């Protein structure tokens, strides 16, 4: 049996799945100050009298990191950065305690200026004096040659062994130094609290005699074993929209193109599934004011929901972005889109008489009947969603491309389905679908699609392999692995084989070895290096991933 739990803004949802069927679900109010208790309440409710040994897998999607950052409860972090030549580092705006040191690595990982160790020592002393317990060190192109970051770490630790030091190349191996520095800082700022939380969860689950492996959902729709997730705390941010999207993937036929519409009280999250694959944002996620390297689904959050404030403007209405409180038909103070939907019979929840009253009140303000007012509100909401959805497809089409084939093959695509999940405001979904010429789908278990998504999501993993045969070495961006390449004939085939071997090893280290066979090559490029009219070597770039997907227990076990 599988268990999925998703902590949402208002409720924490859980499901228990057996042989591809949802056999139990629960919803408990979310208490952000007592997340562990929420999770366990939801868990206990679905487990009930089921013997714990029957449970095979537990997946959690939590808001812990999101809340820590939103509430400013993260640990203070000092940053030591080695920017080398390029932009003025003052422009990076990465917080208060930033120390800039001399030294540089270039794009091929060559040292072009030695690290100024005295400057690092000075910075470390100041940082220790000021009481920082967390330090991030990041050097430009540190992912191509981590030696300066490692040296900086040593120096900081020698100054004060109590300080926890995070290195840039361990936080991300992708190009983009400011994002890497920010991601490293966020990791340093959240890791300790996240670890404590993870330990508490492990204890609480084991107290219930559940020995099944526990996984945590990430923003890219993949799962990580709880123990491993401690090394990647920030990747668990934004797992809520990822959970809903994975839920839709699980509840719709495979291989289709769908828009996921998750309508909440004040916001609606939109995501895309293209030919059965959830769309990953080409850039990392924005966290608070920081741009990061965190892989996440391309989710568009629209300030519109069932409880949005409705404002009269002449003879028309505007919606949101703020919340009006609960809908009038649920005893709230003001008219909301939920009331409009109730009046138009698009939904059947809430008090119909109160809803009518709300729309009459609105109608008086804009000079029309209750029915007309409701129509205007619904039209405005549908129009807003429609334009955001079209905008998302357009943005996908207009994503920059760097190769001839990418420009030639990208066609205009439109959704087959509009799938509504989440709260009670699903009445808009069929209308949006009709206007898009798509099928409107509200799955039977729409209200717990998020928990289902968590329960059946499989692990994801990426690997960025680069070999430089002229310099005779390779690097793996994600974990900073490097090694020698002696074979001068090392070519594309060898590079892909090696990348595959490395991703299998990486998967095993992460405790997800059984999924390594799902790894696929996402990009593979060879650059002949010519110096003085002779080929002197090759740069080989291979990208691999275990993409977001569903576990075989769901796809092969009676689920769709």
């Amino acid at each position, binding site marked *: 049996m599988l268990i999925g739990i998703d902590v949402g803004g208002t409720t924490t949802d859980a499901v228990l799945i057996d042989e591809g069927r949802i056999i139990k679900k629960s919803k408990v109010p979310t208490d952000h100050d007592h997340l562990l208790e929420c999770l366990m309440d939801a868990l206990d409710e679905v487990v009930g009298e089921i013997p714990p040994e029957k449970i095979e897998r537990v997946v959690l999607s939590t808001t812990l990191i999101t809340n820590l950052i939103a509430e400013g409860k993260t640990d203070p972090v000092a940053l030591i950065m080695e920017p080398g030549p390029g932009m003025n580092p003052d422009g990076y705006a990465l917080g208060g305690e930033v120390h800039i040191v001399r030294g540089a690595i270039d794009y091929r990982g060559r040292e072009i200026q030695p690290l100024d160790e005295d400057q690092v020592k000075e910075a470390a002393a100041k940082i220790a004096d000021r009481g920082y317990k967390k330090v991030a060190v990041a050097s*430009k192109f540190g992912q191509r040659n981590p030696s300066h970051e490692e040296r900086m770490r040593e120096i900081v630790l020698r100054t004060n062994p109590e300080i926890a030091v995070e290195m840039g190349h361990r936080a991300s191996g992708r*190009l*983009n130094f400011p994002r890497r520095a920010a991601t490293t800082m966020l990791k340093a700022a959240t890791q300790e609290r996240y670890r404590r939380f993870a330990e508490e969860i492990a204890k609480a689950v084991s107290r219930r005699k559940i020995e099944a492996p526990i996984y945590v959902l990430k923003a890219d729709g993949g799962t990580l074993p709880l123990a491993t997730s401690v090394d990647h705390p920030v990747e668990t941010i934004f797992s809520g929209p990822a959970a809903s999207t994975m839920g839709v993937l699980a509840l719709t036929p495979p291989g289709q193109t769908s828009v996921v519409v998750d309508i909440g009280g004040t916001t609606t999250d939109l995501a895309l599934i293209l030919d059965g694959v959830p769309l990953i944002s080409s850039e990392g996620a924005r966290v608070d004011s920081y741009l990061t390297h965190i892989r996440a689904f391309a989710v568009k959050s629209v300030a519109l929901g069932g409880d949005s404030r409705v404002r009269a403007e002449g003879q028309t209405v505007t919606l949101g972005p703020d919340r009006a409180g609960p809908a009038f038909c649920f005893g709230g103070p003001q008219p909301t889109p939920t009331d409009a939907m109730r009046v138009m019979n698009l939904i059947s929840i809430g008090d119909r008489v109160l809803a009518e009253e709300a729309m009459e009140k609105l109608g008086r303000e804009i000079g029309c009947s209750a029915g007309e007012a409701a129509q205007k509100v619904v039209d405005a909401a549908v129009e807003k969603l429609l334009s955001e959805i079209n905008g998302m497809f357009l943005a996908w089409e207009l994503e920059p491309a760097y190769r001839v084939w990418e420009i030639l093959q990208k066609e205009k695509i439109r959704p087959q389905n509009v799938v509504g999940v989440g709260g009670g405001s699903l009445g808009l979904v069929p209308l949006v679908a009709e206007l898009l010429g798509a099928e409107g789908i509200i799955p039977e278990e729409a209200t717990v699609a998020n928990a289902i998504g968590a329960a059946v999501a499989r692990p994801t993993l990426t690997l960025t392999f680069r070999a430089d045969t002229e310099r005779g070495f390779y690097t793996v961006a994600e974990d900073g692995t490097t090694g020698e390449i002696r074979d001068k004939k090392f070519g594309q085939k060898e590079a892909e084989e090696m990348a595959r071997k490395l991703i299998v090893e990486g998967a095993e280290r992460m405790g997800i070895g059984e999924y390594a066979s799902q790894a696929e090559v996402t990009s593979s490029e060879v650059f*002949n290096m010519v110096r003085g009219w002779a080929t002197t070597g090759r740069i080989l770039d291979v990208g691999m991933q275990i993409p977001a997907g569903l576990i075989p227990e769901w796809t092969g076990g009676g689920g769709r």
Partner: protein
Amino acid sequence: MIDRREENKDRARKMGLIFFPAFDWAITPTHPEREERLLYTRDQIFEEGLMDLPEVEEYKPRLAEHRDIARVHFCIPSVEALVTEAHLIAAGSTLVLADAYMKGEITNAFALVRPPGHHSMRVAHGNRGFCNVNNEAIMVEYIRKKYGIRRVAIIDTDVHHGDGTQDIFYHDPDVLFISFHQDGRTLYPGSGFVDEQGGPKAIGRTINIPLPPETPDEGIHYVLEELVLPILKEFRPQLVVNSAGQDNHYTDPLANMRFSAQGYAKLNEMLAPDIAVLEGGYAIETALPYVNCGIILAMAGLDYSNVREPDYHPGRFSMTRAMEANIQGTVEYLQGIWDAREELTAKAVERAGPFYRRHKNIFYDTDGIRERQTESVKMCPDSSCPGYMTIDTDAVRGYGQSESGFGVFVPLFACKSCREEAREEYEAHKTDSRYNYIFFQDKNKDDFRLFSTRIHNERVY
């Protein structure tokens, strides 16, 4: 006058950028124009996070249409045969940025794209100097047609003479073409001397500034300050284009100048082009990552003082006395030509008679083609009409058969009688069996036709 340049001054600054490295396209695997060329530049500008800056907006390339190419070039045997998809994307990228700029979405733009184009002339039989079609010319003519502007300045800052761009606009008094480059006696393509000053009706609208080998930043900034900027101020262009080669760099393997990344960044700050388009530059590791980073920061209005090559220090290169005297002499001479351009134009028109003719021998180094041309321009009595032009071309590829063509070209601002006469010339030559291809280009009507005399087929682009 719709002056985007004026309009943009008060806006929030945002540069448009297209980075199209064509990682899957090369002339040949070991050619300088190969996949690897912008690899390290990609690494540097992505690692800097330049695409995330609020001052930078990244755009996606698109393919140019065949008619965009035919608006500029007489391609033999056809547009389709001469361009690959990579060429259409490089040219199309400039059009995306042109539209974004003209619509006011951005304050300036940089097309960091390959393959390059500035050696491609009006008639194109193949690849010359790594170029098949002229990206800047395609963009300028697209903008002039679509947005109705007239006066454009193209400053060619590549180390090689921009002979293709010069050829295309040689008779156009509304396009100011300025090229500074390493002296043609010491470098490909062996042209770009001070006496190439434009056709009779456009004297002074082509300005060539040959510079001695080893000229450092200082020399080029001097030329800019003393000659280029004052001329621009007087010419009052509605659009300034930088044909932005990066091979003046001190490490470039194909040339001998001493320009630095700082020098390039400052050049772009001084020149303040509306749109820059990458041309050459083959020091792919030692120059391009730094030069491109510097140019992007400068165009985005950001501090570029921290951009430098690992082995560079200020004052590393200096001018010799002889160099200084040489450059000063060139600048003074060209100032004289510019100041006297009206009289020189009048004299040249008078000397030319009813038609101005010149003969050219053109060599296509990359494709090994020898071409002979006779260019003939009607000296229209209407002084505001540049006159239509015909070109008689004959080209031999290797030791093979020759391909010949006859092209008729009507400029954007030609008068009615020139347009009619040109059309008659085209129709008359359709039966002229001396030529394999007859081409007609009426920029005024945006009408482009290629007629094959062998199969009697007319293609309309």
